[in-house]
């Protein structure tokens, strides 16, 4: 997998995914753009480097967007993979479509209904345990938000997963250091260190740059593999568009026409421009 993972291609893909999200943002006002951008490379790596897919089109591995407000990232990747039709994304959050602002089980490629925070890790652990019990060769990937890490239910699952020896469970923390009312590390000054906390609970735990696709792939590939794996991925909220970076308003706001054009210019496909 590592050898076949083309980092340059991943970068181009992620720029295109961000542009697609911005395009959709021009149709609806309520859209979580910035939190989708912070987990872009993480979700891209999960789908393009790790998720195995059968010829039938079904995924052999599972992915749960526990920080449900990041689902736009998942939607555009599923669209690119041919799992979600373009018309579904084009009718996002409208009565004629089926996709909402949080993942809803039953839509193609969506494995769990999230949106309320703190649910995804327990569900993922249940899936991973059931897979092991039934002898299924399947990995379960889950993306968590840093605000979400404050939910007690997360820590119940954190304590439980190593007990169940879930070496088939891989969690990525999208640590963009922002939550509803400000910086995560200001809300909870002892939020860090995170990796040590997970390590002490019995996880294999590493820190990684969440926008460095190669580093993300390496971190998973180089795991010991006998325990659940937790990657604390340092990310930037709004990554890819300069004016969105670390500006809390972009948790909810959609760009206006001028802002949209500026964002597109920043996310231009440099490869094709140069070619």
């Amino acid at each position, binding site marked *: 997998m590592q050898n076949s993972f083309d980092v340059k291609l991943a970068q181009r893909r992620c720029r295109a995914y961000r542009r697609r999200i911005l395009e959709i943002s021009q149709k609806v006002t309520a859209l979580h753009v910035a939190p989708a951008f912070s987990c872009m490379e993480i979700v891209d790596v999960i789908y393009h480097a790790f998720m195995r897919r059968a010829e039938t089109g079904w995924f052999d591995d599972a992915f749960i967007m526990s920080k449900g407000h990041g689902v736009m990232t998942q939607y555009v990747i599923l669209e690119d993979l041919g799992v979600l039709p373009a018309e579904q994304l084009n009718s996002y959050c409208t009565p004629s479509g089926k996709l909402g602002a949080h993942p809803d089980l039953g839509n193609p490629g969506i494995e769990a209904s999230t949106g309320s925070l703190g649910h995804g890790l*327990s569900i993922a*652990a*249940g*899936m991973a345990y*059931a*897979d092991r019990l039934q002898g*299924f060769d399947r990995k379960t990937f889950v993306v968590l938000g840093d605000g979400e890490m404050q939910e007690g239910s997360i820590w*119940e699952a954190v*304590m*439980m997963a190593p007990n169940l020896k879930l070496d088939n469970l891989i969690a990525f923390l999208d640590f963009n250091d922002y939550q509803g009312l400000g910086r995560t590390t200001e809300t909870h000054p002892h939020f860090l260190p995170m990796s040590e906390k997970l390590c002490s609970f019995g996880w294999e735990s590493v820190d990684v740059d969440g926008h460095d696709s190669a580093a993300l792939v390496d971190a998973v590939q180089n795991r010991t593999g006998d325990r659940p794996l937790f990657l604390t991925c340092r990310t930037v909220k709004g990554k890819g568009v300069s004016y969105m970076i670390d500006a809390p308003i972009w948790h909810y706001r959609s760009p206006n026409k001028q802002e949209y054009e500026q964002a597109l210019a920043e996310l231009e496909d440099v490869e094709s421009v140069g070619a």
Partner: protein
Amino acid sequence: MRNRFASTFYELGAEDPRLVIVVADISPAGSIAKFREDFPNRFINTGVAEQVMIGLCAGMAQRGLRPFAYTIATFSVFRPYEMIRDDLCYQDLPVTVVGIGGGVTYSTLGGTHHAMEDVALMTSLPNMSVIAPCDPAETAAATRWLATQNQHPAYLRLGKAGEPDLTSNAVDPFVIGKLRRIREGKGTAFLAYGPVVKMALDLADLVEAQTGLPATVASAHTIKPLDSDGIASILCSHDRVVVIEEHVSHGGLGSRVKEIAWDSRASCDLRCFSLRDEFIHFYGSHEELLAQHGLGVPQMSAALGLQQSRASHIERA
């Protein structure tokens, strides 16, 4: 009820490898202990952690297993309620949440252990079924149904251990979603669920002693989906209908029966006995706690104008 649940689960689980039980530091002894020994991979104890208990069950159900979550009713319903709502009901997964000690069974443990509002909360959830058997035999039948239905989440509300058998001579068989007549009579009908069905039978004896007419007694074991037609039929064929439930008055069987009475234009006298809308700061036996809220045969018979026979009168100091 607890023991019959455990022995039935063991029996079914030995046959069906999809059955898993996830407990939160509370587990029935006996057959579940044996299940744990014989099938260690299908018994999970999350410790004192009810949210992950429900979340794990959701994930396992999505992967084809048929999990049961089990702990004391207050902790299986109130603590992880949002997980039940979002993970089980919103996703519509076949997981059974078992609450042991429904009502005020744990009478000396204080209000933190009284599940007085669980039926209201659970019946309000879309996709959720709510089953409250009245005796060990109904517990076995309910467990059997829950372990084999592949559709939706369900809540199984149990009492504790040592309940008497009330249904061995029942008129109707146990059918999920159907009101079950235990005795058929005329004039007066009693509707109840859970172990307080015993009180309905005792009151029916008093009615018969006083009027010479046998009274109808029915177990409303399936509180959701409620057998509205069956209840409307009882309401329209009796002069007096009495609902008894170990639950607060709002959101339980009594309020539903009143709705059905209105919808079906029933004209009978309708009386509902329930727990009051108050926490209980009183300690004693289960029966003594119920009596504090008027749920005792003496209080209810007085309220209904029935004469206590010498034999059934419960002497109180």
